[in-house]
């Protein structure tokens, strides 16, 4: 295992120290293990809290800031945060108008956020949960349900922008749920990744193989296939996405081509060119896009694709200013 770390046991706390040093607009509580905006809580405003295992950076810590999250609570690598941590985050940013939990659909995340919501309720904090479950590689039947992956970025951006307008708890949560319902993702891995604790890769792949339908936790995917050119990977992924949620000519979408950690940007642009062609061939419009690393699996080489059918409200909120370490635009 070759990692730029000091010790497997201090990965998350060391990274939090780095985030604290790098971003003066964020506040890090190293004991509670939470990252919030400076100046929290802001009275009367709905707050967005998200979290999950570490190893997916910039998600979620990199999305804390104006127009997006109010707090993030990073767990150990690939391990959801504990309820106390989530509760501490909720308390730190609760401005009296309630808190939205953005939760990726994994058993661990769901249970820990549920427990935190109960504790927060005991504290008089109203919580609404947005469950993200966009990964079409997983059948909802006979499983723990679809995983939450790339759509999380869209949910956090759009719900975060709505919270910024002063909207109420129900409206902000509803906007997040609508984005999730309109979004689908699919991912392919070219190499495995190694958690600091395990010290060995989660699976082995031959030089001509890829794992198709992977999640973001270094686990194997739905199937192993022969490596294909970028255009083939793109069309397989988009076929899976559109089979699950067909789009019609003229539909408007936000599309993300996301690197899983070890794939260079030049390759993501190559994939995006193929995505653009695929959409153009079908007359479906990409009206906004993200190409880069937004939700990763440590150093895994690979790519995920997320498509969100966007309506006018979503696009307006997408375009609203955002000022976080990893996403920044507008005034």
């Amino acid at each position, binding site marked *: 295992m070759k990692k730029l770390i000091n010790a497997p046991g201090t990965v998350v706390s060391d990274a939090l120290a780095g985030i604290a040093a790098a971003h003066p607009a964020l506040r890090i509580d190293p004991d509670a293990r939470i990252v919030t905006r400076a100046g929290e809580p802001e009275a009367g405003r709905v707050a967005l809290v998200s979290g999950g295992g570490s190893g997916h950076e910039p998600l979620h810590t990199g999305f804390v800031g104006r127009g997006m999250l109010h707090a993030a609570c990073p767990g150990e690598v690939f391990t959801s945060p504990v309820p106390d941590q989530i509760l501490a985050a909720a308390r730190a940013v609760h401005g009296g108008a309630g808190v939205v939990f953005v939760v990726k659909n994994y058993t661990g995340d769901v249970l820990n956020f549920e427990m935190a919501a109960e504790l927060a309720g005991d504290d008089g904090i109203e919580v609404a949960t947005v469950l993200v479950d966009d990964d079409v590689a997983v059948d909802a039947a006979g499983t723990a349900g679809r995983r939450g992956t790339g759509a999380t970025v869209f949910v956090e951006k759009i719900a975060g922008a709505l919270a910024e307008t002063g909207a109420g708890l129900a409206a902000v949560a509803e906007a997040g749920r609508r984005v999730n319902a309109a979004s689908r993702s699919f991912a392919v891995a070219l190499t495995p990744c190694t958690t600091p604790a395990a010290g060995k890769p989660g699976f082995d792949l031959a030089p001509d193989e890829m794992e198709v339908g992977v*999640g973001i936790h270094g686990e*194997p995917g739905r199937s192993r296939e022969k490596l294909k050119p970028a255009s083939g990977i793109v069309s397989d992924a988009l076929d899976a996405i559109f089979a699950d949620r067909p789009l019609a000519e003229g539909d408007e979408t936000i599309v993300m081509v996301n690197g899983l950690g070890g794939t260079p940007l030049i390759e993501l642009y190559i994939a995006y060119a193929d995505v653009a062609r695929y959409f153009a061939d079908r007359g479906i419009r990409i009206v906004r896009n993200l190409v880069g690393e937004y939700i990763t699996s440590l150093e895994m080489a690979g790519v995920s694709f997320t498509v969100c059918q966007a309506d006018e409200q979503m696009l307006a909120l997408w375009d609203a200013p955002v000022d976080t370490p990893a996403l920044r635009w507008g005034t």
Partner: protein
Amino acid sequence: MHMDIPLARAWIRTVAAAMEEHQEQLTQLDSAIGDADHGVNMHRGFSTVIAALDGLESTNVGDVLVKTGTILISSVGGASGPLYGTFFRAAGRQLTTPTTDAEHLLAALEAGLAGLQKLGGAVPGDKTMVDAIAPALAAFAAEVRTGGSVDLTAAAVEAAAAARRGMLATIPLQARKGRASYLGARSIGHQDPGATSAALVFQALADVLQAE
């Protein structure tokens, strides 16, 4: 044989030692069909627990188990933290006396399993920790309720053996809960990490009772 507070503490300490010893194995099992953290999770959780138990003033057996569960919830994260945490808390809440006999312990552990299943929604055959815990409690119950003698040690030994069989029986199963379920048929052929840690929990109980 009854379970008293020192024995309950010894049980949890033995579980912690087992999790430390098997950390690598649990993580590697989780690496095959999960996210390679179960060993670290269990080790982090139980080492936090034993540190906290040191300072705990307990007036009954349940205090030890409730505290164990509470600390697991606040230190593990992941799926296993809330699930094991709930198991120990729900079990502990039933044990309100300084010592407990086999029958009461069984009822308490059954309450623990019920809490765990209510939270996680898994049933036997889903390839989870339930596949070790449920047969363990069934074997325990067979000793306690139908056997002539009510020997806690014998019941725990039977329970540990059944947990182990249940753990091994997860190998051919296709997972329907937890991360392994994402793999579909590819989860078949791998032993469930949570069932493995659960077998360690019951083995530890048998071990401390036999050592008495």
